[in-house]
């Protein structure tokens, strides 16, 4: 019995330590300015949403939020299409040069973004896409496509080959097999891709900082920097901005949690 209490106490302590940054952030986002002198672990005594309104309107988070939603949504949807089609071609089709293509995707998997950020910038600039959402979207897709091609590939590899052959004999074209036979059973992979790509795109700072200099194109992650000058720091603005950024992602994960875990472990067990 004592052991059990000890365990609960121990785990509870860990949970509090893990959650404390989040809790403190929420606390300070809800504190009126007068309470800021209190130590950060004091809960807000006089809860206020004024900082959220301030960040949303004066901080232009309304604009940034829209920009971010557009980029992340397009990223996620297009990524599902591109990655699944590429993986389908790699897993189910036969053609010369397949090994080379596979190797190129592998290379794409190994190169870190920071290593190619400057050439990437000059390419985007040379095609005139700096300061456009399209430029960011293309870059996002190109940088992450390898990961999702491999994820879809490993999922498709667990689909029995006979299923593909049966559909061929039934008279389906490759695209019909992709669309009507393979994709309907790849839902876990689709959900995982959508969530992960959305999350990465939502949280990414580096590319946006570089490719979207104009204020009206900015995303939330860049907008948050406005509250942190060299000399000043707007703690309440920073906190409520952080909560606004985190909230949609947390909600998405709560809704799709079960699919997500299944997608991650699929292919591994089968």
């Amino acid at each position, binding site marked *: 019995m004592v052991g059990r209490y000890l365990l609960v106490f121990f785990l509870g302590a860990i949970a509090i330590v893990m959650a404390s940054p989040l809790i403190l952030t929420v606390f300070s986002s809800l504190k009126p300015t007068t309470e800021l002198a209190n130590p950060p672990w004091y809960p807000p005594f006089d809860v206020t949403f004024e900082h959220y309104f301030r960040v949303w309107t004066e901080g232009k988070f309304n604009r940034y939020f829209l920009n971010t939603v557009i980029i992340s949504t397009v990223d996620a949807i297009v990524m599902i299409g591109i990655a699944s089609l590429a993986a389908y071609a790699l897993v189910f089709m036969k053609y010369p040069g397949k090994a080379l293509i596979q190797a190129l995707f592998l290379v794409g998997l190994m190169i870190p973004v920071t290593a190619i950020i400057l050439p990437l910038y000059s390419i985007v600039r040379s095609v005139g896409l700096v300061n456009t959402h399209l430029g960011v979207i293309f870059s996002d897709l190109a940088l992450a496509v390898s990961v999702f091609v491999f994820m879809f590939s490993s999922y498709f590899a667990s689909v*029995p080959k*006979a*299923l593909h*052959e*049966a*559909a*061929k*004999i*039934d*008279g*389906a074209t490759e695209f*019909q097999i992709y669309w*009507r*036979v393979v994709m*309907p*059973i790849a839902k876990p992979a689709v959900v995982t891709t959508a969530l992960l790509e959305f999350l990465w795109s939502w949280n990414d700072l580096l590319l946006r900082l570089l490719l979207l200099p104009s204020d009206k194109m900015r995303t939330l992650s860049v907008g948050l920097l406005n509250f942190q000058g060299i000399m000043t720091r707007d703690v309440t603005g920073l906190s409520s901005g952080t909560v606004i950024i985190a909230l949609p992602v947390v909600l998405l994960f709560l809704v799709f949690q079960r699919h997500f875990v299944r997608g991650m472990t699929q292919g591994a067990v089968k």
Partner: protein
Amino acid sequence: MASVELRNLSKSYGDVEVLRDINLIVEDGEFVVFVGPSGCGKSTLLRMIAGLEEITAGECLIGGQRANELSPKKRNIAMVFQSYALYPQMTVAENMGFSLRLEKRSRSEIQRKVRTAAEVLKLEALLDRKPGQLSGGQRQRVAIGRAIVRNPRVFLLDEPLSNLDAALRAETRVEITALHQRMDTTMIYVTHDQVEAMTMADRIVVLNGGVIEQVGSAMELYNTPASIFVAGFIGSPKMNFIKGRFAESAGAGTIGIRPEHFQIRNEAGDWTGEVAIVEQLGHDTILHVRVPDAGILTVSLDGQHGQRVGDQVHLSPISELIHRFDNQGRPLPTRN
């Protein structure tokens, strides 16, 4: 309906030749079974006819036309896979109607054809279920149903019964034979089970190591096997092969005697041995008899017999039914 003709067909994977110089004509409406041990190339040959596997050399003709370059769709064949390969997200009706839907047939026509096939296969009650909600036997029927709704020219089946239990297998075997008689379609059926081959086929093609050993009716293969391999493969229990003294006195390298071609005699003779194992099956009795210079012989006797392990028995082969083979395993003419 169509005939299938294979001319000097070969298949290699890289340097490995898995099928060599296959020549075969399957007549329109015929039921042909490919039989052979695991890895002999049965599935590969069937898949080449289906268009799922490229033809390395030679020609495959379907309905008299060269089909080497045709896609599976254009060959107008249907295939039943060993694993059934049903589309998991579609209902039974959708599975069966998928090929018709791809052909853009009208909804009412698809419904009518699926219903007809479902009646034949007693699947009417299951049409709205998904494959995951079916038993193995029911899945197998759906796989056959998916093949017959299209009314294909040639029907290919790759070990369709191997995932069923023995009772269901025997039952479905009869149903497939009946189905063939009703549809009158050319059927090519792959199995490694010689009982399936003998009971179902108009003609049996025995494959071994990538070549055709013999083509013929079940009785032709049983009575006049073209090689030791065929002699040993066809018939159950297996033929006894005896070398040494007994073979020499018959003027052969090896002699083969089917278990059912031994008789029990009362007086001692050459073939006297000790019973090692007794298998009582009711309608027949199988003795395993240790005979000096011949090894352990399998003897199948009609009806029920009282021999026990350790008993001495005197065997006598029916001499005109002894198969003689030379040292290469080729049959020698029967002596009278």
